[in-house]
């Protein structure tokens, strides 16, 4: 049956839910009524939405990152350490790679092996295997809200157990999981499984439990702002249909601060506009940013500078969440100390900036905002047109035809015709717009900016410039 943007009825949801909970034995312990009562018993400082609302009111910024170990004991040790030594305000659960592939048997072996060796051999916490009761021990041990951080083509059982376990935030990003996390999953499938978790969040919301959903659409460096804004907006509409009321909208900053702030402004505006235009109540949006780079600096001084920059970006963009990587990102799996240092750095930087008003250049901001808005609107409007008003059908058609494209998708069902490059000021410009529905004026603007850099460099920009763009920050510069 053709999938459309339509709220799952309770019947449809509970019918599907039976199959979902049967995927692994711990599924039978998920009791929605009990979970709702548990969430209502949580103090506000352990609830993601309450915490982010407070941040928004007071203009505060909280660092976030993913953290995951194989066993509950190790997870508690890690999170409480980061909370105390790193002064973290928000915590995150990374889920291991086996669980992301729904291979809970292999995750079970990983837990056994980790217990035997006395150290984690998994790259995240296997939530399904530990079950609701297992994760409740983590929630009881910490004093901050915890968010699930992972991507999977089928996140349904992980999310059922994760939310019932006490997570108050998670991701619901069908496009991201289709584009970046699996190479053979059709978009229709990813949208269908993510619709289920959106509906699950909607169910909690209907029963008075606020859950913060999130999405970012595309991942990584070299992703032009308008593409990311469009990918977020179409998914916000899908979320609203399923009853999501709170969402963290995450986007990549690329280092040209005027362009970064413009992205934030356009994202806020288009979220409101399109929800209203399509007949939905506005949902509470929180912003979250990360400094996007392919290669992180190995040298520790530069790595701390990346955390500073990330925090400055969050401040300028008016974001509540400062999504950082630890200073050990280029080295490998971070230790608890690496994670705590990184959080503490972000916290101190945020303390310094707190209450101060800083702004980027007004004229530049105005140009970047105008461009990002007209580009993102061109894409979203074309998506809606392709779907004859239905955002799900439109998105499926747009992704297939490259009207909504991704330069670095892992899934061969994506055309990957679009390519962006930095201009001389470090702002991203379309080197190739592929099949994006852009006017001549938009294309001329980008060509002009690329020509300015070509003039400075004395050569044509090509893939070699692109490679140097992707490596620049690891060498301690924004653009070479």
């Amino acid at each position, binding site marked *: 049956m053709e999938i459309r943007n339509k709220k799952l009825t309770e019947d449809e949801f509970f019918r599907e839910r039976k199959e979902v909970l049967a995927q692994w034995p711990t599924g039978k312990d998920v009791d929605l009524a009990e979970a709702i009562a548990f969430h209502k018993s949580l103090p506000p400082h352990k609830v993601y939405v309450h915490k982010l609302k407070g941040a928004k009111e007071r203009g505060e910024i909280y660092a976030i990152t993913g953290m995951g170990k194989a066993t509950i004991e190790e997870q508690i040790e890690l999170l409480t350490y980061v909370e105390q030594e790193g002064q973290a305000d928000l915590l995150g659960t990374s889920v291991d790679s086996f669980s992301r592939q729904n291979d809970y048997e292999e995750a079970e072996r990983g837990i056994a092996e980790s217990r035997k060796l006395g150290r984690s051999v998994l790259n995240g916490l296997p939530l399904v295997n530990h079950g609701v009761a297992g994760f409740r021990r983590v929630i009881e041990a910490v004093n901050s809200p915890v968010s699930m951080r992972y991507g999977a083509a089928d996140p349904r059982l992980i999310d059922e157990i994760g939310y019932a376990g006490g997570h108050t935030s998670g991701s619901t990003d069908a496009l991201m999981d289709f584009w*970046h*996390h*699996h*190479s*053979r999953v059709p978009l229709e499938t990813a949208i269908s499984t993510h619709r289920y978790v959106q509906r699950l969040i909607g169910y909690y919301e209907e029963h008075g439990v606020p859950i913060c959903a999130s999405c970012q659409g595309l991942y*990584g460096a*070299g992703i032009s702002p308008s593409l990311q804004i469009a990918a977020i907006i179409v998914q916000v509409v899908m979320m609203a249909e399923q009853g999501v009321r709170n969402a963290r909208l995450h986007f990549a900053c690329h280092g040209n601060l005027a362009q970064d702030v413009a992205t934030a402004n356009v994202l806020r505006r288009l979220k409101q506009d399109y929800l209203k235009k399509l007949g939905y109540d506005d949902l509470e949006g929180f912003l979250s940013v990360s400094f996007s780079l*392919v290669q992180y600096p190995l040298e520790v001084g530069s790595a701390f500078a990346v955390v500073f920059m990330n925090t400055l970006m969050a401040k300028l963009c008016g974001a509540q969440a400062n999504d950082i990587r630890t200073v050990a990102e280029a080295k490998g799996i971070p230790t608890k100390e690496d994670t705590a240092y990184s959080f503490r750095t972000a916290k101190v930087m945020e303390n310094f900036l707190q209450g101060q008003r800083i702004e980027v250049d007004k004229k530049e901001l105005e140009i970047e905002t105008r461009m990002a808005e007209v580009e993102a609107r061109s894409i979203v409007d074309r998506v809606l047109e392709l779907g004859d008003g239905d955002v799900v059908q439109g998105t499926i058609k747009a992704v297939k035809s490259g009207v909504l494209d991704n*330069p*670095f*998708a*892992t*899934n*061969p069902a994506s055309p*990957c015709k679009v*390519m962006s490059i930095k201009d001389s000021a470090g702002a991203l410009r379309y080197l*190739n717009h592929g099949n994006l529905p852009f006017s001549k004026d938009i294309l001329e603007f980008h060509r002009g900016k690329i020509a300015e850099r070509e003039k400075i460099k004395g050569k044509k920009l*090509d*893939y*070699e410039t*692109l*490679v140097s763009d*992707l490596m620049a920050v690891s060498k301690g510069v924004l653009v070479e």
Partner: protein
Amino acid sequence: MADTSKSRMTVITGVIGEDVHVVGIRILEYALGEAGFKVVALGSQVSQKEFVEAALEASGDAILVSSLSGHAATLIPGLKEKCIEAGLENVLLYLGGFLQVGEIAWESAEAKFKGMGMDRVYPPGTSPRKVIADLEADISLRRRR
């Protein structure tokens, strides 16, 4: 823009094994397209069988295999044999990426993978320009046979 005389040169690209990292191969595909090649991009998590089937279907001149997990030594054996079985003994096999875990001398790694039937093996940091030049030379040579 693209030189159409080369458009008949067809290459199959993909990342072998379980890895989903594609930035490197995507840049290479982009460069190949700009240089006029026909590129059949298989994305990531590609099996040996899928590479061979794509080469058969598209009458490929070369298969470009990327491997970033460090497990190439277990992922590459058998690929050349599968090509021969399918009647594709003339299809060039190129390999690049992070091929092995740990610090092993590049020359010995190159020799090892050439022993498995790879025509060219590239270390990390190779420019697409070099690969394109090699492809043009190797394919022209093969076609003259």
